[in-house]
């Protein structure tokens, strides 16, 4: 190898090393965001949570898809062709599937196969946030586990880490599977992960999440756990509630009345 080529390769090699080195340094210097003065009416300090009343679900949820349709319509969630490509933010499953550890042979007859509404639990200790390699999914100060669809690389590590199956990848271009598009919410591209966002965009306008607003039967309640007068605080103080897979330490913020 002649001398100039050797020198060129050395420079290239060293600059590559240097580049990856800065990434490591930056990684530890990061997390300096949120250093803004907060706006007085900002959500900081709020702890959003949802209470789902399964005792009402047997009658109310039978054949009803209001919450699901409302959510999927305003968030441009596509209706995919094949089950394997399915994208869903909120859906209905059996009690036994939503709460595998709470199921037993002598489960009250009327709880067997009871429809249970499931969605992202907006965990206080979210495993999806822990594993995401680009901070595309992150926890906001108000407890909402949110996503940046423009940063997601589609590695699906979050889908593996979520113990609730709450996340979907766009296995195909979702825009081909939308009947109508809500122009006020972004559509996604193929190859990114998405999930329930607790309607951050509606909360910012002082509106209840779409699923809660759509539920006429009072199965879904939403509010601030920090506010003792909120619906959710009142329900939690009156009823015995359970959460999905509490033994995993994720601290879900969706509570179920049984």
């Amino acid at each position, binding site marked *: 190898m002649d001398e100039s080529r050797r020198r060129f390769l050395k420079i290239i090699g060293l600059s590559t090393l240097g580049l*990856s080195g800065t990434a490591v340094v930056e990684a530890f210097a990061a997390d300096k965001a949120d250093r803004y003065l907060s706006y007085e009416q900002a959500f900081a300090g709020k702890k959003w949570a949802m209470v789902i009343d399964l005792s009402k679900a047997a009658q109310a949820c039978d054949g009803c898809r209001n919450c699901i349709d409302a959510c999927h319509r305003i968030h441009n969630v596509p209706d995919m062709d094949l089950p394997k490509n399915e994208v869903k933010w909120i859906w209905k499953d059996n009690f036994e599937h939503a709460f595998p550890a709470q199921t037993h042979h002598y489960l009250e007859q009327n709880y067997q196969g009871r429809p249970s509404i499931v969605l992202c639990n907006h965990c206080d200790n979210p495993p999806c946030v*822990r*594993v995401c390699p*680009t901070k595309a999914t992150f926890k906001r100060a108000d407890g909402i586990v949110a996503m940046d669809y423009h940063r997601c690389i589609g590695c699906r590590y979050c889908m593996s880490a979520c*113990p609730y199956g709450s996340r979907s990848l766009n296995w195909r271009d979702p825009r081909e599977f939308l009947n109508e598009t809500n122009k006020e919410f972004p559509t996604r591209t*193929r190859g990114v992960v998405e999930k329930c966002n607790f309607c951050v965009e509606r909360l910012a306008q002082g509106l209840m999440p779409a699923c809660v607003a759509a539920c006429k039967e009072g199965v879904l309640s939403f509010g601030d756990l920090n506010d003792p007068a909120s619906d959710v605080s009142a329900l939690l103080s009156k009823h015995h509630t359970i959460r999905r897979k509490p033994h*995993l330490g994720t601290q879900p913020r969706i509570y179920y009345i049984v």
Partner: protein
Amino acid sequence: MLEKALKGSKGYAFWIVALLAIIVIGGIFYLQQLSYGLGLTGMSRDVSWGLYIAQFTFLVGIAASAVMLVLPYYLHDHKAFGRITILGEFLAVAAIIMCISFVIVDLGRPDRVFNLLLHPTPNSILFWDMVVLSGYFLLNIVIGWVVLNAERNEVPPPGWVKPLIYLSIPWAVSIHTVTAFLISGMAGRGFWNTAIMAPRFLASAFASGPALLILFAYVIRRFAGFDAGRQAIQSLAKIVTYAMVISLFFLGCEFFTVFYTQIPDHMNHFIYLYRGIGDGSNLVPFAWLSGITGILATILLLVPKTRNNPKILGAACILVFLSLWIEKGFALIIAGFIPSPMKKIMEYAPSGVEIMITLGVWALGLLILTLLYKIAISVKQELEL
């Protein structure tokens, strides 16, 4: 030295062209996957990682196994490995390129892969995997190349390369440990959530990698007339034997813990894998094939008479590779997703496109390996003339 890769026999040229053809075909299928989306694969909402990530996991092990040559040669002065240590290092280089390729073909948005560097996130194990894999790649290509170049010039290798060689030893352990942490660090996946995952990975890697090297040594002797030496092969065979026994022992530990405690979240995956649940039994024949070939190979390796017979040793190495390829390159990843967190049995089988892309990446790895081996062997053969 690079020019040595360009000159070769007709057979060599044919092999290179054949590999290039497979790479191009794989590339065409990859373009198709890029434009349509990952929906072209067999993966689904429930089984969200498949053949690609499984191949990645397996190949990190192949890469890490270079340490099984480096450590005895440089730390214990095991001279028999002098002729083939470079083959281990170059195998690591090719394997890492395959690993990175498999991660990239698995990404939903490969155009954003540099977000890993733009938004580095130390709490993600994937970040650390990127760090250790790229570091290991650099270590092996630099060490291999510098040592080979020194050998060609008949001078001792420069002093600065020694610390790098020592560093590469724990670094090899780190790449497979971090890759194991990638899957063991998830509370919701009982199949993977075991502290023994990293040791298990290392044991199976130190069996499959050296087994592959023995097979490569046979191929090289046949086609390039370069003999690794009986003693080197026999040392490698002993390494494969020990690693295979430890690997089976670790698997046994998993079986005991899972079936004695009978925690459903952990046990159901094993039941799915070895017996099937309901109609879902896609993986059962593979799981048993892996188990049987693994045990058979271990017996052939344990008995000195069969291990010392080069033909039987070759067959045992094929069995080791097959057994561990099925276990780590397929079943271990897939069965972690079945049943799903909602207890659904959604089965997985790779699609044709997925298989073609996988073959393309393997061809790419083999091409790089062939070129590197050609250079290394040409240098060594020139010196011996």
